[in-house]
């Protein structure tokens, strides 16, 4: 599956510059690698000394605050959704953006559904690796379904209250 990126409200497919590396697998010679938080903590110095982009994958029970000051050195934080009903990832993505001020790529990975796409974008995810066969067209359709939002989140979208105040 290609990676899908959403930028300024539009989705497009692109090649993934990163590889997910299992905890017991060797790192690729070149190119970006995404490792688990456990491996990142264990091999931190080696990983950061490696002359290639690095990303970390968070399980639903792993808060991004566990990354500490190393966060700024990561190009990708992948938020896992092993089951679509587990909504902790929504809070982790939002926290990465608004509390931790993370500017890199926040990637939603896993079992999320078409109908969760707009929520994921709102909380600050900008790339997507869905288990389900979702295309960039699906993303664009999902993102066009609801024009207005009531509450601020991590996407900077103007809320209904702000739009009312402008009238």
């Amino acid at each position, binding site marked *: 599956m290609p990676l899908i990126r959403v930028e300024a409200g539009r989705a497009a497919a692109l090649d993934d510059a990163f590889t997910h590396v299992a905890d017991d697998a060797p790192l690729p010679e070149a190119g970006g690698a995404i490792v688990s938080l456990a491996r990142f903590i264990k091999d931190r110095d080696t990983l950061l000394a490696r002359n290639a982009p690095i990303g970390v994958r968070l399980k*639903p029970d792993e*808060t991004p605050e566990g990354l500490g000051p190393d966060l700024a050195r990561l190009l990708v934080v992948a938020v896992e959704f092993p089951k*679509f*009903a*587990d*909504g*902790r990832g*929504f*809070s982790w993505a*939002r926290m990465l953006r*608004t*509390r931790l001020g993370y500017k890199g790529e926040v990637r939603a990975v896993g079992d999320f*559904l078409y*109908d*969760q796409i*707009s*929520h*994921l974008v*709102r*909380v600050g995810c900008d790339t997507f690796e869905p288990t389900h066969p979702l295309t960039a067209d699906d993303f664009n359709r999902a993102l066009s*379904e*609801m*024009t*207005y*939002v*009531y*509450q*601020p*989140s991590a996407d900077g979208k103007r809320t*209904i*209250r702000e*739009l*009312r*105040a402008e009238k």
Partner: protein
Amino acid sequence: MYRYDEFDAKFVAERVAQFRGQVARRLSGALTEDEFKPLRLMNGLYLQLHAYMLRIAVPYGTLNARQMRMLAHIARKYDKGYGHFTTRQNIQFNWPKLVDVPDILADLATVEMHAIQTSGNCIRNVTADHFAGAAADEIEDPRPLAEIVRQWSSLHPEFVFLPRKFKIAVSGSAHDRAALKFHDMAVEIVRNAAGETGYRVLVGGGMGRTPYVGYVVGEFVAKEDILAFLESVMRVYNQSGRRDNKYKARVKILANALGPEEMHRQVMREFEEIKQAGTLQVPKEELDRIDAYFAPPKFEALPDAMPKGDADFENWVKTNTHPHRAPGYAIATISLKPIGGVPGDATDAQMDALADLMDQFGIEEIRVSHEQNLVLPHVRKKDLPAIHARLAALDLATPNAGLITDIIACPGLDYCDLANARSIPIAQDLSKKFADLARQHDIGELKIKISGCINACGHHHAGHIGILGVDKKGVEFYQLQLGGSGAEDASIGDIMGPGFGEHEIADAVERVVDLYLKERQGGERFLDTYRRIGMEPFKNVAYREQLYAAHTG
């Protein structure tokens, strides 16, 4: 009443279109039932024992005549001619077809209604004191806040896949008519020593298999900070609420595990951050704008005396009218508990006739109460005799508000997929047993609440007398609980012991009530007597027949 502007209207219309797409994908097989389930639930659609059930939101329980007429239309066109008002101030239709549901939602949108988040693991429809804006004892109308909360919580991207459902109630009066302490989160409008009004926030109440009374997490939250504060609680819950066990996933479990101090600490950490960001502050202009929608009707200067009438009228006035803040006005409860009827049910003809009555008497709104009755919040006292006569003709003038036959009951095994036992027939038996009005008056305030399973939709934990239906090897049994209260003196009822059979439970309740009549002192209510003398004497009389059978059998 709140009116949608162009933004609200488009939001709901697009949501209907979105759901139409979801239903089409389900019907074509593109969505599996497992995938469709959280989506339909977020639009109030359940799959029950016999059919789909659609739960429509009545935000903070307030309806106008147009909306009431639309509910009648839906009952007639898409259902079997009736609807069921619930303990969450919503209305449920029990027989819609899946293909019709998008059309029902589109019809609702034309009268500014929806079914958004009436189910699912998200922030549910916000409930409020059903006497809001009318009660003599109120500090402020809590509904503007409820509307602000409704908007903030609608499709909140961070909180639509919570560990479990999340219910918020609001009240503006020290006399709690909204069961605040049994909600996941509740906001009570309070006044501080300086005379300013603000919000006291409670968290962690709930019923179900592990009932808890909520505790205070914010003693006095400034009005403009309230959304920031509520969002803070939601964040703590979404991050730390248990997801390993459905039965331990409600916020009450987390709140109890953390305790008030740690919960407060975690909430305040989030709160400071959100407040600093400033994005959730509610500016005064917005508070004022929403407030204006809920301005009370212009009250006429009227004499305050209650008109006289026949005995039926006098009896109805005695229990079904309540003090209003304006002289010459009253609040009137329309009982949906006719003797031997189904608690909370109303027919399409009754709903239409109520809408006509509202128009005729210039009554702009009607309320749904969590006790499954309807309420006319602003009625001229001089109109009461005519209104009573009309209600009587509609079989809606049962004079039993707050009395022993004003029973709350969940739909139970007659409808519900989760139920272990039937609730409705038990409510009907009890209602018939205590039908005599003089006896009901003698018994006084006594709240019976019946649930058909441990999920406690019938609020049995909070009943002065609670009844819980259980299943024992395929046979329905009913456990008695005594001493619960959903009011400001909130308490969880004590379980008496083993359950009673379907045909024994009403007699057991009668023995319990008779003992109260014998033991009460002064003006004690049943609840007061129970709190004074405890379970033992009640237990002894309730099981009398079983004990007799054990000794002789």
